[in-house]
């Protein structure tokens, strides 16, 4: 027993004649990191595939790149982009404001508002946008006029048939979008520390200002990235506006393709390029908006 207890102590004290000398000379050399050959192989495979695909883009005649410049700034395409941007922009603003309202409803202590808001989100998250748009187009069949009024009292009504298609389209996009954006806003508000609400209350800041100045700007930090995702989805969802007889970018491409059936592929390429450009533009705006709302977040 005593000898086994002693041995390590003796070893630690006595210098190791063989090992120590070369080890000491390595004390100032850089440590060589572990090699990962698997990663290198994977990188190589992906690179080869990318180069192959890139090559087909130019060598495969079916892409018909020569026809792309003819179409890319064609007036119908630009008209379609105009509609896409207009519908997306209006719906994005309307759904953000609507989303805040519904989110506040869901976070409210009032049980009725809570239930109504939950019901709204449940309904419009469940029903596909395409169905909402078809129903809206059918509105004059269901309700020849819509309006509000005091029950059994005076009514203010407008005939549904006279509603502008763009208004119908934006209403449809927004109805659906509000359901999603309200969840984004709600999670953003929940992400703001409870102490912020308390501090605002303790200072006696009025309720609306508490929300607009203290809670919302902080919530926006987490809202913005998800909401930009929503807006990009909205940009692409605007192709469903053909159900209210509006032609966005993709609608125009489809319509032109039927008149010029030999240009279907180049027209699809044109649509792809435009969607890439529009989404990139949105991402750039996102970068600056995020930077603005991140102020104070860094040390």
């Amino acid at each position, binding site marked *: 027993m005593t000898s086994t207890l002693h041995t390590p102590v003796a070893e630690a004290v006595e210098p190791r004649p063989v090992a120590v000398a070369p080890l000491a000379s390595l004390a100032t050399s850089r440590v060589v990191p572990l090699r990962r050959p698997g990663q290198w192989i994977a990188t190589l495979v992906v690179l080869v595939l990318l180069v192959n695909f890139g090559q087909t883009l130019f060598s495969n005649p079916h892409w018909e790149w020569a026809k792309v410049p003819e179409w890319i700034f064609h007036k119908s395409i630009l008209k379609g982009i105009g509609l896409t941007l207009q519908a997306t922009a209006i719906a994005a603003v309307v759904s953000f404001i609507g989303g805040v309202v519904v989110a506040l409803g869901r976070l409210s202590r009032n049980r009725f508002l809570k239930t109504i808001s939950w019901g709204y989100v449940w309904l419009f998250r469940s029903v596909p946008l395409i169905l909402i748009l078809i129903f809206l187009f059918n509105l004059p069949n269901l309700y020849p006029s819509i309006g509000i009024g005091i029950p059994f009292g005076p009514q203010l009504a407008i005939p549904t048939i006279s509603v502008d298609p763009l208004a119908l389209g934006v209403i449809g996009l927004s109805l659906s979008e509000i359901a999603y954006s309200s969840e984004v806003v709600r999670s953003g508000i929940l992400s703001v520390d409870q102490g912020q609400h308390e*501090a605002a209350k303790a*200072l006696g*800041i009025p309720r609306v200002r508490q929300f607009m100045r203290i809670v919302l700007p902080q919530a926006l930090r987490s809202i913005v990235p998800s909401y930009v995702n929503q807006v990009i989805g909205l940009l692409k969802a605007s192709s469903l506006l053909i159900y209210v007889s509006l032609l966005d970018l993709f609608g125009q491409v489809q319509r032109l393709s039927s008149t010029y059936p030999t240009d279907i592929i180049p027209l699809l390429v044109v649509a792809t390029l435009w969607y890439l450009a529009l989404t990139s533009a949105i991402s750039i705006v996102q970068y600056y908006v995020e930077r603005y709302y991140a*102020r*104070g977040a860094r040390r």
Partner: protein
Amino acid sequence: MSIAVEIHNATKSFADNRVLRGIDLTVRKGTVTVILGPSGSGKSTLLRAINHLEKLDEGYVVVGEELIGVRVQNGRLKELREKEILRQRSRIGFVFQNFNLFPHLTILENVTEAPIALGTPAAEARELGRTLLARVGLTDKEGAYPRQLSGGQQQRVAIARALAFDPELILFDEPTSALDPELVGEVLGVIKSLAGSGRTLIVVTHEIGFAREVGDWVVFLDDGVIVEQGTPDEVIDHPKHQRTQDFLSKVL
């Protein structure tokens, strides 16, 4: 000496947990009252009830001459409208354990936010804000954001913010508990400097040394009731109750 705060039968439950069990407490004007007690004793809840951040189930609080958060109607206590409550709160300073500065606003904006919200012209509010920041020793930091400051500096900003309406009464909820030990001193220093100025301070804390040095009155709370109260000499140095003695032996 006149009375700054009167608490009568403060009673509060969270679900089945009775946090305050009918507390009566009187705080004299211009004094520093220190509330001690183990965690879960109800001391923070009691402090937050004074500016109605916590609603009492029973009982009431009077600050100065005014009932807080409620009014008497048809022989019953009814909660005030939010606008009224907010007005009352603006007259009472409150300093949180976790500072709760607004991270997206600069230091100066943090201090001027409430005055501007309640109608002080912006230029005047900024002037006031700079004076208050100077008072807590942070003249050169007005453009910084809270996260760029140390914990001690942040808490000093929070104190400046609480002073914006020149309140007669300031409540401190464990103001040094979230600080690294070496930063505690600077915050306690600022609080001490407020003590002599005729204001009434109520401080929930674990800093026994501070309680002994600055406190005029010490209240020991446990399990939702006041076990013992008196001067620091009575409660801290010569506690009568077993529960007070046990608590002090753990923290000292």
